[in-house]
């Protein structure tokens, strides 16, 4: 069967499944719409959280992100999983006990202040909207690549599908579609990974294969990878090449940022009990780890496989000729993700590090005039895997469905966080407090529709900073919401003034630091300093600033608290009540 038809069938079937689930899981009340009436099994919620969390970037790009840098990018692995420990121990059980609908609602009630709530809404909107842009563009790209429709059409189809199940089902619909999407994406990711692992190491478990013997050379796989990379002038895979301080802060920023992302936090409002919230975070991490333990293995193996394909007789012998290159390279060259240029016109593909001064001499000796793979997109390592392993066409179709599932599930979670902040925290709480439950449900649906239109528009006209926005979202989540939530639970004495001051200091210090190096509002040419290590304050990159912003938040909140009035006794009692699990069921309706 034609690959295109196959892609269409598999992707179409997965979409039909999502829409079917949405019709089955319609929301009938605001409790349904915001929290699936807190009736979600903790294991199901774990899988839904995993899909909510793992975006198109995790699915398509992460293996390449690690493979092209090696050890240094382990920060992503530790950071994006370590955040769940913070969630399980410091936030999720208490926020579940509090038993409300949104993150700003907790901040507003705990700090007995509408201004605190509004500051939290602003932080939430900045974080979630910047994050959703990436998901929408990701879905558009996935569509256009696999279904050969223009980017715009792809984006509109994706938005329509999300529209149907998010507007109809709210959190209830999103939860069960995310469960289905998790199953699709993990299957799609695992099958080609198992085959490449078998091919290179004869071990069917990729995570174990990464640390076992490379069948072809008889050496440990990572030793072999270090060897071929250094022989081509690249730095070794397992070595540490950045600064330690920056790597520590970057890892911490990702951890704290993960725990502060509103669309992840609200998933823990859907389970029946406080004990379930703890357990659910554990299951979420198990489901996430299935992909995150596989991704670095896929990256390293695909990278080694590509290099040994190019240099079949070893890196000191001439590489393969252009006409002998495997079919998958020719196929992906058509998409522009791979591009070759025979710079020295010898008809052979030289792939090496032409920026290494140490290697320049060797290259000159061999008559090499530059790296001939001029475009080597990191996503190739995942996308081309089924073809590299010569798997049947349905596996490639599954990858298409998996990539779309990853993008749609994250987009839906973000859109729910955005729309509930608008309908519940802005409309119901501030602008039109008198509305009934039915009216609020309608308002939630209208805000959702509005959020989808906005996200689609932003996806079609992405502000020219797609790469930076994720750093911004994590940095701000770490510097604003996480400290406010944590102090709200762990400090009985924290008051409005302290919390608001902390959030504002975190917000503005992080924005200032990021904009200094990446341009004001990311407008090119407005950066005040070049974004290079020599200019960074203490060598801290703008991507790593979230952890510093969080510390500034904690510090200034504490300082302001010391000089202002303690919170009223009923607030201190509220804090005591959220610290114990008993009575959580009673808090369902309010």
């Amino acid at each position, binding site marked *: 069967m034609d690959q295109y038809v196959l892609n269409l069938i598999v992707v179409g079937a997965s979409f039909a499944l999502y829409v079917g689930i949405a019709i089955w899981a319609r929301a009938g009340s605001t409790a349904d719409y915001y929290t699936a009436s807190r009736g979600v099994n903790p294991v199901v919620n774990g899988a839904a959280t995993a899909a909510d969390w793992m975006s198109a970037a995790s699915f398509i790009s992460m293996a390449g992100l690690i493979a092209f840098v090696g*050890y240094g990018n*382990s920060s992503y*692995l*530790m950071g994006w*999983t*370590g955040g*769940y*420990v913070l969630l*399980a*121990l*410091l936030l999720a*059980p208490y926020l579940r006990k509090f038993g409300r609908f949104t993150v700003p609602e907790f901040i507003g009630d705990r700090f007995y202040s509408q201004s605190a709530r509004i500051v939290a809404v602003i932080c939430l909107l900045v974080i979630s909207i910047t994050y959703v842009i990436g998901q929408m563009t990701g879905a558009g790209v996935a569509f256009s690549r696999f279904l050969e429709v223009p980017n715009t059409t792809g984006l509109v189809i994706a938005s329509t599908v999300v529209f149907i199940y998010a507007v109809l089902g709210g959190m209830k619909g999103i939860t069960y579609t995310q469960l289905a999407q998790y199953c699709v994406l993990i299957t799609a990711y695992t099958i080609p990974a198992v085959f490449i692992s078998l091919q290179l190491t004869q071990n069917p478990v990729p*995570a174990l294969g*990464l*640390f*076992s013997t490379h069948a072809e050379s008889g*050496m*440990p*796989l*990572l*030793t*072999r990878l*270090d060897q071929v990379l250094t022989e081509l002038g690249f730095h070794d895979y*397992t070595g*540490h090449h950045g600064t*330690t301080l920056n*790597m*520590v802060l970057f*890892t*911490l920023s990702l*951890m704290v940022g993960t725990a502060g992302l509103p669309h992840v936090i609200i998933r823990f409002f859907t389970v029946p*009990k*406080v*004990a379930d919230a*703890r*357990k659910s*975070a*554990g299951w979420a*991490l*198990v489901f996430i*780890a299935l992909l*995150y*333990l596989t991704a*670095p293995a896929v990256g390293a193996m695909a990278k080694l496989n590509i290099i040994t394909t190019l240099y079949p007789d070893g890196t000191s012998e001439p590489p393969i000729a252009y006409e002998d290159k495997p079919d998958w390279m020719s196929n992906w060259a058509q998409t522009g993700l791979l591009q070759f240029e025979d710079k020295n016109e010898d008809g052979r593909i030289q792939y090496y590090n032409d920026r290494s001064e140490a290697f320049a001499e060797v290259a000159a000796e061999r008559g090499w005039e530059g790296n001939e793979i001029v475009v080597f997109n990191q996503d190739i390592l995942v996308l081309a895997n089924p073809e590299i392993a010569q798997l049947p066409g349905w596996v490639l179709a599954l990858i298409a469905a998996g990539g779309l599932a990853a993008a749609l599930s994250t987009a839906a979670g973000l859109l729910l966080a955005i729309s509930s902040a608008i309908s519940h925290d802005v409309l119901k709480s501030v602008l039109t407090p008198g509305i009934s439950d039915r009216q609020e449900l309608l308002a939630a649906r209208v805000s959702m529709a509005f959020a989808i239109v906005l996200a689609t528009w932003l996806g079609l006209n992405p502000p020219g900073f797609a790469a930076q926005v994720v750093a911004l979202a994590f940095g701000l989540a770490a510097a604003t919401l996480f400290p406010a939530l944590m102090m709200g639970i762990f400090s009985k004495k924290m008051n409005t003034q302290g919390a608001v001051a902390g959030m504002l200091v975190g917000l503005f210090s992080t924005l200032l630091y990021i904009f200094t190096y990446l341009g004001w509002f990311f407008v090119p040419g407005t950066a005040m300093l070049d974004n290079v290590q020599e200019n960074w304050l203490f060598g801290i990159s703008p991507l790593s600033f979230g952890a510093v912003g969080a510390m500034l938040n904690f510090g200034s909140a504490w300082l302001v608290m010391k000089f202002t009035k303690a919170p009223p006794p009923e607030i201190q009692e509220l804090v*005591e009540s959220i*610290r*114990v*699990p*008993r*009575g*959580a*069921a009673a808090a369902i309706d309010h």
Partner: protein
Amino acid sequence: MTNEKSAAAYWSANLRIIIICMAIWALVSIGFGIVLRPVLAMLPITIGGTDLGFWFAQQGSILTFIALIFYYTWYMNRLDRRFGVDEQ
């Protein structure tokens, strides 16, 4: 909650286990995975042709995180029952 004393005792027991778990959380990731990697590399242990620190950065920390959350969940369920604050 029967009285204030047991509320305070429950909370300090919770804080104690949180601090222990967070210390392990930091040790396996920031510690073994990054800062202490050169120290671990001095041990005569290699895993898959590389040092223990690399393994912690790519896999060991994640596996420890999972174990930590489930341990904390188990511990807290027991603590909740002991102090009579569990959900019926």
